[in-house]
């Protein structure tokens, strides 16, 4: 059986890539995709821990993943809508040019 640590390392690597993307990239669309990446890294930990800690049938971890995927889908809808309206309003999706939160 593959040790749980491997899954966790994979998840950590994916999470770090996602985080780095969120922090470094300027394109909002890319940032958005990186967020999705981070979320899926978390999903991997859920599944991994569910596999290693449960004896018999306990789908708590797996259920969480389903929820996260659902929320991510909803978020994707809202997020993309925001990005579209940004693009039409500012004709740019560069994160550095969006400072409206300050006002």
């Amino acid at each position, binding site marked *: 059986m593959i040790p749980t640590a491997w899954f966790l390392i994979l998840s950590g690597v994916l999470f770090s890539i996602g985080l780095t993307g969120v922090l470094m990239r300027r394109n909002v669309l890319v940032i958005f995709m990186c967020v999705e990446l981070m979320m899926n890294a978390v999903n991997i930990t859920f599944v991994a821990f569910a596999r290693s800690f449960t004896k018999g049938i306990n789908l708590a971890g797996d259920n969480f993943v389903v929820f996260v995927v659902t929320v991510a889908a909803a978020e994707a809808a809202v997020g993309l809508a925001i990005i579209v309206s940004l693009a039409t309003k500012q004709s740019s999706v560069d994160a550095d040019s969006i*400072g409206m*939160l300050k006002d």
Partner: protein
Amino acid sequence: MTAKDVESILWLVPIIPLVASFINAFISLAFLASRKKSDLTAGQRFARGLTGVIGITAIISSLTISIILLVFLQGSSEHLVSVKEIFIWIPSGDDFQIRFGLMLDPLTSVMTVVVTTISLMVHIFSTGYMKNEDGFHRFYTYLPFFTFSMLLLVMCNNFLWLYVGWELVGLSSYLLIGFWFAKKYDWGRMLPSSANVKAFVVNRIGDFGFGLGVMWLFVIMLPHGEGIPLFDRLNYENVFKVFEEGLVDGKVVFLVSILLFMGAMGKSAQIPLHVWLPDAMAGPTPVSALIHAATMVTAGVYLVGRINPIIVRSEEAIAVVAVIGILTAFFGSTVGTTQKDIKAVMAYSTVSQLGYMFFALGVYGWVAAFFHLMTHAFFKGLLFLGCGAVIHSNEDTIKEMFEEIHHNAEEWAKKKYPDDPAKAAEYAFELFEAAENAIEYGVDPNSDDRLMRDGLDPQDMDYMGNYFKQMPVVAISMTFGAAALAGVPLTAGFWSKDEILGTAALQGQWWIYLIGLFSALLTAFYSFRMIFSVFWSGSYRLPNALTRLAHTGMQKKATELGIQYFNPREIIEFVGGNADKARKQVKVHVHKPGWNMQAPLAFLAFMSIAAGYVGLPNVIFGNGVNQIEKFLEPTFEPALKVMENSDIAKQPDFTGTLILLLVSAVVSLTGVGIAYVMYHKNRETLPERAMRLSGPLYYISRNKWYFDEVYDLIFIKGGLAFFRFLWRGIDVFIIDGIVNGVGYVTRLISQGLRKVQTGFVTNYALYIALGLVVVVAIFYLTVGVKF
């Protein structure tokens, strides 16, 4: 008449004056509000006079009932009639009910009769004294109200109601001292509008102690009131029973007595709280007679007499009363000796006589104190009313002179400038004003001449003299009153003061006796100094002084205006240069008081002699002569019982009492004699020389021992400095510093923090990531991770 009948009419005594006061208040507000006397219609004049009639009628009714009650008590074997419940004040719940009750015992009975008698005399006298006042009806609203308050104070049967009465007389006193609240100038004396505040504030210091005393009594009574409603435990009989059974610790008895005595010190103007009384003379003189001489100021004596079952249990408290009393008696008599203001002499005399009453209480002379209280009420009421008559006539003379000058100045100016009426009128007005100012404020503030410097004060004895010719009834009555005050043999004051001094000697308190005797000498001296210099010696000096002042003032003004050929004599025909000629030829005359002012004086003069004969010493004239002692004894029985069980009670012997009587007589006659030599025979020379001889003593006495100055330094200036420190040091610096500091620091921090809010999503994401790193790091460092 039975006790039942007494119970049914008892409440009428205080209520009738209250009702009269309300009716008068209604008449004043409905028909006479803020009208000048000259603007009134005939109907309003009638209503105005009616207020006086209503006041007098009410007091007569009260007096009649009081006398009936007194007669009943004297003939009855009962010594206490108590009505427990007339109405309930603040009825809420089963326990929180304050019952209003009245009682009648010998002490109360004597007090009600004295209060209503003096009050009646003052009511009658004031119809003459106040007849030209715009506030006549207001005066007759306050006076019955005061009488009600005082009667409530002496008749209630409960410490709580005693406090209510105590404050109500304070309020009446405040209203009446400030009766002339609009006065702007009073020849250097304190103005009514300040004097009443001073009286109120100084009394508050005493009342603070009094209030604490009543509260403490309440606390003491809490465990002892099985089955008695909460506030009924403060009834005199309940409280006294607890003290008589010896259930209270000695120290507590002392402290409670002293706290209650503090109230007495305030109301009765004892050192160091006496400072308000002399300034209270700013009120109308009848008010001074009623409130600040005969009745209200004796409330303190009444209080100490009333709590005799308590205070007799603490020798220390009694000693405090004695020391304060003798100090005040001595202080008052020394100050009275040198005052020039006729009312100031009387005021300090009152302070001093109240001191006598207190040291009488302090040497266990319970009856002696109240005997003196009664006689003092009569003769001091008389003296004040007499002073009122004198001042009234002086003020009228001054007013008449103003009118004369005004009229003549106009005539003169018209003659001088026949073709320029405007200019003439202007000059006439200027000259008139100059004369008026000269009389009120003086001419030259740097002058050595007191008259030129300070103006003419109608209360200054230096400008009075020989009023006997003008007002013989006043002069003779006043002489009787002063004789009683001085303790001239056979007058009322002689018997009562001698009983006080005799008690002090009997108790072996020789220091108190000697100081009291010396004060009696001074008392005799200053009272006859006043009588001689006002009524009997010299000449009628007022017109001369008035003329001199008006002359100088107008002359000065004329020079300023550049008026030529100005002769003030033409204007002041009021007195033709010298007073003797003036009296014959011109309109000036002393205003004779009418019958309504003279009758009360005559009655009080009679009482100043007669009142003494209810209290002749038993030892000399046979047992049972001393009516007042026999009558008052039941009230002081608890105290007398305590005294019998200790070594305090002593019986006077015949020779001792006789010697003391003779000493008193000699001392008072000596005082009168000195006054006669100084102020009747050699008025121009001797007082001046005595003043120079006594050196600093004169100035200490003249300036009232510098009490006001010291108080001003300590309490006013010192208080201001202290509170300025609290303001600038504590409040502004420390408190505000902390509050503002917190705000300042917060702003500094937030100014740094707001830079973090850039509005760029990436930055926020970075903070979140950094936060995550920090959280993980903390987690790792504290909990640790185990794989």
